[in-house]
């Protein structure tokens, strides 16, 4: 099963401050540990929400709200994608995340990914060729270096 290990944002990350050199080194080592154990599938870090936006839908209308967003604790700072055997294993990996060197609070959230096997095969129609093409075009572009 796959888990997304979500790193919650904090005031520093929302202010666009990069982590300290020692913190970057520590998370680098952590990432290496995940890779060496064969559980790391991917991950990314996110810019502060001041560089992002929200698109809200109501009554069939879309409204754009530019960042930054206030509720820092609810925001996402980045994520890792883990392939593990159980939720407990995902938790054990999360517990190994390096603590902040200045003692600031942090939070990781673990969420299980839906797998294609979770959906019955007839739920996705074979007819939708156009969509299929668009999706694969994206993947193929990525694949060609």
């Amino acid at each position, binding site marked *: 099963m796959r888990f997304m290990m979500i790193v919650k944002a904090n005031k520093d990350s929302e202010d666009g401050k990069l982590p300290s050199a020692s913190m970057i080194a520590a998370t680098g080592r952590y990432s290496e540990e995940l890779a060496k154990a064969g559980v790391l599938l*991917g991950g990314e870090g996110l810019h502060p929400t001041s560089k992002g936006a929200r698109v809200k839908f109501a009554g069939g209308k879309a409204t754009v709200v530019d960042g930054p967003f206030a509720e820092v604790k609810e925001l996402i700072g980045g994520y890792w994608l883990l392939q593990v055997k159980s939720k407990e294993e995902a*938790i054990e990996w999360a517990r190994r995340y390096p603590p902040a060197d200045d003692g600031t609070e942090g939070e990781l959230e673990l969420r299980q990914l839906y*797998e*294609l096997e979770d959906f019955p*095969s007839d739920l*996705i129609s074979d007819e939708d060729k156009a969509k299929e093409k668009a*999706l694969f075009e994206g993947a*193929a572009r*990525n*694949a060609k270096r």
Partner: protein
Amino acid sequence: MTSDVQRTIAAVWRIEAARLIASLARITRDVGVAEELAQDALVAALEQWPRDGIPDNPGGWLMGAAKHRAIDQLRRGKRVERKHQEIGVGEAERERIVPDLEQAIDESVGDDLLRLVLVACHPVLPEESRVALTLRLLGGLSTDEIARAFLLPEPTVAQRIVRAKRTLSERQVPFEVPRGAELEERLSSVLAVVYLIFNEGYAATAGDDWMRPELCQDAMRLGRVLTNLVPDRPEVHGLSALMELTASRAAARVDSHGAPVVLLEQNRRRWDRLLIQRGLAALEKAEKLGGRGEPYTLQASIAACHARARTAEETDWVRIAALYTALARRLESPVVELNRAVALGLAFGPAVGLRELDENAGEPARADYHLLPTRAATCWPGSVARARRGPRPRAPRP
């Protein structure tokens, strides 16, 4: 509550087992003894953690517990005495080993893991023992989990592991990384074991299920571990690419009624794009390292041709046929010959494919021969009879 703790212990074990055993094996020079010491630490955890709670650093705790036992036993010389007599380590020597132990056990473990996987897949062991030992020592699987994965009675697997450890000890297989040609040979044995595990999961030979995805996952995890242990070997990345690209199609292999769906009829929207991307990236790495003509990399390249095609009709059969031709030069396999013929037929017309099949038909020794005409009929529907009457230049639709 207890079962929660037990699940946590199982998870910690899965994370720590390989490193623990590898570090201990460097000290004891005996994988069997190392594994038993690690097991003892696990038993201690199962006794103490439900009572005292999970320690803050569970990996360190296990290592500490195993370390104590290792020192204890070395001092008493209990389990290793026999071993020491065999290899001529005397009392004085043993005294010298003990102080080194504390320090040595904390050293880096990367090379130890490589040594461990090379020993687990050592050619002195029968293939099924290599599989069991690799899953047990590197994958952190219990004997029971291995037994369930291969639909075998647990005592059978336990026997295999015990015998394998005894063989390694008796034959005094050194816990080291060999050099040059021997390393190549030993690594290829490791890759073969991992691919065997993957295939057993992907095309389950026993039981009613088409696949046993857990086993595929275990193999892919081992593959990723290997890409970090020996990152400069092209075929390690080639194998990883092959497994990820193959597994990307898993969800499309059966329809909603549980019936199998052949590759060209699969709903490609059910292919896992994350695995495809990872597979293509691994393939690129393998090719950059010079693996282009090597068997796993070639097979991954073929899988990549399918992964890149948005629809079955867009499949690059000319390239696939060329890749199968290159593969046939490296692997003597009726299945490869068959697939090559099918690809040639799809690339250049059924007549070309059938000519290949007829050439193969001249070799009755090929065990899978009976499959050939059936497969041809499946792959080029309606075209076989026509092609028998004479060549048709037009490529058929798959």
